[in-house]
């Protein structure tokens, strides 16, 4: 069954490493739903979080293929265990005098935050799971979304285990 998986990849922070990952996905016909990359705690590493879809065999191949890349240090399919997942949406919404009160009410209820207010346009931030961002976006769509920017997903496991897919001993 094809389901979304979040794969967390620890890589050495070097030129071209992101291209290697992206090339692997496009070259082998895997899908990238979202991708985020940023330096890890230690600057010599980077963390890449990829949301991808596939059945178990495909996801297993993706993890193995990622491991085959030389700069890849660790690969973890963290959607298998319990994980905290997070993404951010930044939305510019057109608001008029007539619906301002209603709009502000939605903002408060959804735990979104107003980042900027200008003439007729509110810029708000919503964060949470992919579903939270999705739901909020649908709610404010009626007012007229002028611009919508969304981060990819980042995720971390809840307990202190990190990896369920180590570089070696993949028996």
């Amino acid at each position, binding site marked *: 069954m094809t389901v979304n998986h979040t794969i967390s990849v620890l890589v050495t922070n070097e030129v071209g490493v992101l291209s290697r990952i992206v090339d692997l996905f496009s070259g082998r016909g895997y899908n990238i739903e979202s991708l985020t990359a940023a330096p890890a705690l230690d600057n010599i590493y980077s963390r890449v979080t990829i949301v991808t879809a596939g059945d178990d065999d495909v996801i297993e191949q993706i993890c193995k293929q990622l491991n085959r890349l030389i700069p890849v240090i660790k690969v973890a399919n963290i959607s298998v265990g319990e994980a905290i997942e997070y993404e951010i949406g930044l939305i510019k919404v057109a608001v008029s005098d007539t619906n301002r009160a209603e709009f502000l009410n939605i903002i408060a209820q959804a735990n979104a935050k107003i980042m900027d207010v200008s003439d007729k346009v509110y810029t708000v931030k919503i964060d949470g799971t992919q579903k939270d961002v999705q739901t909020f976006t649908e709610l404010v769509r009626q007012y007229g979304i002028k611009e919508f920017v969304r981060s990819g997903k980042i995720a971390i496991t809840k307990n202190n285990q990190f990896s369920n897919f180590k570089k070696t*001993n993949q028996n």
Partner: protein
Amino acid sequence: MNKIMYSGAEILLKSLVKEGVKEIFGYPGGVVLPLYDALYLQNDIKHYLVRHEQAAVHAAEGYARATGCAGVAVVTSGPGACNTITGLANAYYDGTPLVLITGQVNSKLIGGDAFQEADIVGITRSCCKHNYLVKDVKDLARIIKEAFYIASTGKKGPVVVDIPVDIFNAKYEFNYPKNVKLAGYNPNYKGHPLQIQKALNTLFESKRPVIISGGGVVASNAHKELKELAVKLHIPVVHTLMGSGTYPDDLETSLGMMGMHGKYCANLAVSNADVIFAIGTRFSDRITGSLKHFARDAQVIHIDIDPCSISKNVKASIPIVGDVKNVLSAMLQELAKSHHKINTELKDKWFAEISQWKKKTAVIQKNSGKLSAITVLTTIYEYTKKDEPIITTEVGQHQMWCAQNFKFNKPRKLITSGGLGTMGFGFPASMGACVAEKGKYVINIAGDGSIQMNIQELMTCIDYKFKVINCIINNGYLGMVRQWQEKIYNKHYSQTKISSPDFVTLAESYGALGIRVQKEEQIIPALKQAIEFDGPVLIDFICDSFEMVYPWVLAGEPIDKVLLSREEG
């Protein structure tokens, strides 16, 4: 104390010497001038000047596959580097260790569309195991060390090192690192002991086991262990194209090559097995045929150094990630300790069944009166087998006829393009094999189509007196494609009739020996003359145009659906 300073070019050459490199293949150009100048001033490394950069990489691959050591090629930036792509892809597919040095424009000009600039690290990313752009001369020795380490460990493959001209000129001291530290690269050599035990137990209990021996057995030099284990466990062995020679074809328990053009008995044995013991193979579609039907009732034990190969196409019930030689040795040790008695009676029943299949072979084809390619190849094999020459091939019908009709009793004797199927591979690869063989003749089995893809290398062979005997199966067609057109595309021979120059006078114009063979009785005299000639030879065998390769399993069909003759439909 003042340290001695060397140019990047000198550091590169010293690093190659440290890696034991004595021979390299290459082609000069603008940005590698400093390197070629340093080459000029030394005597440790011999450079072979080819006539096309693609040939340099194929030659390095031929050398690597003949010796087991990493081959090395050097080319210039831009067009030079772009010409190597096919060679890289070929080596990547077939797991051949090689290091390709590409020149790059001055690092300050990169990205500015300089003359002969190409983003070679970007271009080669998906057709090599790893690649580097050297940005600081201080990193050069370490990168070369890493390149050789990555190329020749794990699943072997090509590594590209792109070096800008200013790095070749920059000065630094030479300290060759002793060790490689790569956090993200730790190939797993030892198989898991429990998995090994499980594999042995499964093989003990099997009634109809078969071993599939692949290219990994060659890469790991594990043919002795394979033979010992197969004999002790009383298991028949089939091999893939890349596994040719890993199990002696002369042995009764060898069922020969399996797959699309494999032997009937090999395909039937695999299809009817209850346990398939796959060693160092990636289950290419050319051996599995229809995956849905492949080994329906079999448990699959799969050893491979590359975890990606396991359960990619065929689900393994007992996966063992590890080096083939290492794992097979561990299995032999366990076997020696075990008190299990092999049930030979059961296995003999299986062998009896197989011997029935052995009787079914491809039907000999009637032809127009022109030479039969199969006759030519069997004659070449019989006449030259005492010398055990390395055989290289191009890609097509001749390649399959060669794999079917030559017996390979040792590994590294057949050098052929397996995964990528590169026409034009064989001739340059034979040059690399010549360098490895140091004077012994090498036979390149070619087609009239394939030989024209890198024919320019005749001149390289003249320069270095490479004794390459090119046996051209000249049937006037791109035969393999024609064969498919005959069977599947209503005999629409679209663009497959191909003309050739007069190969005899062509050879002579290069200073090579050219011989035309049109009759059976001319084959052996031609070979005799070719072997005696001190240099490259083209033998133009004028063959029947419509001979087909059988056995044949049509693409996507189950591998036990074997066609043995044209008449079979």
